[in-house]
């Protein structure tokens, strides 16, 4: 089973929820927030293996090329440009789709792998962990996320997604069994939560909400969940001790009270899946 943890906006505590639940529930952990993966700071797994993620990009044989420009014309991402002296390739714009190779009439294009990031694989004492890391200066995160997803096995796994609602999030939550949306009780939290809700609804993924830094009985998120009939699977109160543990890169479940709380959330997540 795959459980995605996402949030409309950043900094709501998505990684806190992911790492703590993964540890108390003995679920594996995959960090798909490849632009800023932070889960390993808290889980501190031993990395056993690293693999590079490459995308296939064109390589043009100048000798064979007849300067017909067909490759540049077919490329939808302006990664190839025809000039008097030949074709220029802008590697960062290339999606690795292969269209150029297909249209070249003389077979002047072959493909080679271009590294855009890496994947670390390891484990803590109890769970398996993976994370993707996008190289700095590389724009495209989805290929790394897709590769990570392909490595996930049948065991129950928490997938920590990137914030927002762009194509990176779509790649991360595609095919998951249930999603957990982490938010906070502010107008921004609600604004961005609604976007995330729309996304998971569009993709037909059953979901529940975790409210972080809750400090009121009947806040705007709780009201929203009631109105929309969405399962509120957890409320994590704001506490100074949580902020301190977090800042030191520690798991909150070191604290007895939080331990129970996250276990409860984990169990209710299973309930969301069962009810769907």
């Amino acid at each position, binding site marked *: 089973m795959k459980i995605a943890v996402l949030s*409309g*906006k*950043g*900094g*709501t505590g998505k*990684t806190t929820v992911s790492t703590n639940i993964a540890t108390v529930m003995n679920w594996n952990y995959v960090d798909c927030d490849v*632009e*800023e993966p*932070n889960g390993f*700071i808290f889980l501190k797994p031993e990395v056993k293996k690293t693999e590079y993620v490459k995308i*296939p990009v064109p390589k043009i044989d100048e000798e064979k090329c007849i300067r017909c420009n067909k490759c540049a014309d*077919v490329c*939808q*991402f302006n990664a190839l440009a025809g000039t008097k002296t030949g074709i220029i390739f802008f590697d960062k714009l290339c*999606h*690795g*789709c*292969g*269209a150029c190779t*297909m*249209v070249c009439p003389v077979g002047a294009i072959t493909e080679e792998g271009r590294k855009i990031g890496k994947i670390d694989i390891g484990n803590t004492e109890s769970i398996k962990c993976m994370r993707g890391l*996008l190289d*700095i*200066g*590389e*724009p*495209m*995160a989805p290929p790394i996320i897709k590769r990570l997803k392909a490595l996930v096995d049948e065991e129950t796994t928490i997938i920590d997604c*990137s*914030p*927002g*609602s*762009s*194509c*990176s*999030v*779509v790649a991360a939550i*595609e095919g998951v069994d249930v999603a957990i949306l982490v938010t906070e009780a*502010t*107008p*921004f939290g609600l*604004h*961005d939560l609604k*976007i995330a809700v*729309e*996304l998971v609804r*569009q*993709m037909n993924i059953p979901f529940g909400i975790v409210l972080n830094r809750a400090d009121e009985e009947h806040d705007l998120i709780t009201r929203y969940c009631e109105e929309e009939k969405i399962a509120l699977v957890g409320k994590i109160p704001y506490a100074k001790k949580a*902020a*301190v543990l*977090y*800042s*030191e*890169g520690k798991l909150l479940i070191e604290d007895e009270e939080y331990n129970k709380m996250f276990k409860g959330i984990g169990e209710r997540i299973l309930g969301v899946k069962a009810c769907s």
Partner: protein
Amino acid sequence: MQLVIISGKGGTGKTTVAASFAYLSENSIKVDCDVDASNLHIILGGDDIEKKPYIGAKLAHIDSDKCIKCGACEKVCRFGAIKDFRIEPLKCEGCGACKVVCPSEAIRLEDEITGDTIITQTKRGLLSRAEMVIGAEGSGKLVTQVRKTAMQHKKEDEWVMMDGTPGIGCAVMASITGCDAALIVVEPTQSGINDFERVHSLTKQFGIKAFVCINKYDINETIVFEIEKLCQREGIEVLGKIPFDPCVKTAVNDFRPIVSYEESKAGKEIINIWNAFKNKYKEEDIK
């Protein structure tokens, strides 16, 4: 002068600082580059005076009347976007490879609207922002468009004040390209340091002058010290340290910039940071 306010990850207080700067700098056009989850307009308020759809991607369409169900397109699509002779819009990157192989010309690429660019008239000047279509491809291109729209409306002597995007991928790259300075908002946590290092490498790669302000510095002063050491080593000036202040939450709930609360200690520090920054760029006479 183009200033972008960024942070490796979201939730470090980037928008709190950006909204304050936007509020304090009356002579500027404001830009919200966070097209996934734009928030600046909620704080600054005002009315939308212009809204335009932006075509930022292409999407393949299969004409089922022409399709002979040969399956060639599905085989060639590297993004797994074709199944049973149907395109899955959220997965299609609009590359056109399927169109190249289709023997019966059943596939065409259509323009896809990836968001709306919007100009909002706030009390403190114009704000350029966007609403991205959920799950859309190419948020970086939409960011570029939001910046272009801002430049069309910018008056000559105005500064450009931008709320950047979290992360280090295409959207951030699009928001920092060509800026004169970046203010990185850092939180004193282990993950905050990590994110800061990554986003700072990015500003270095792009040759953008970086400044730092530390938010909620009183959460963990040991890490603050580490951040300061790091900045010293890298030659980055720390413009200020914002204390934790419960008033920030009140401000968010009231839809007001924190600097509009006279009693707020966080607000006071942000005003100091703004003045420090402003003087710097006045001295060096960069427009």
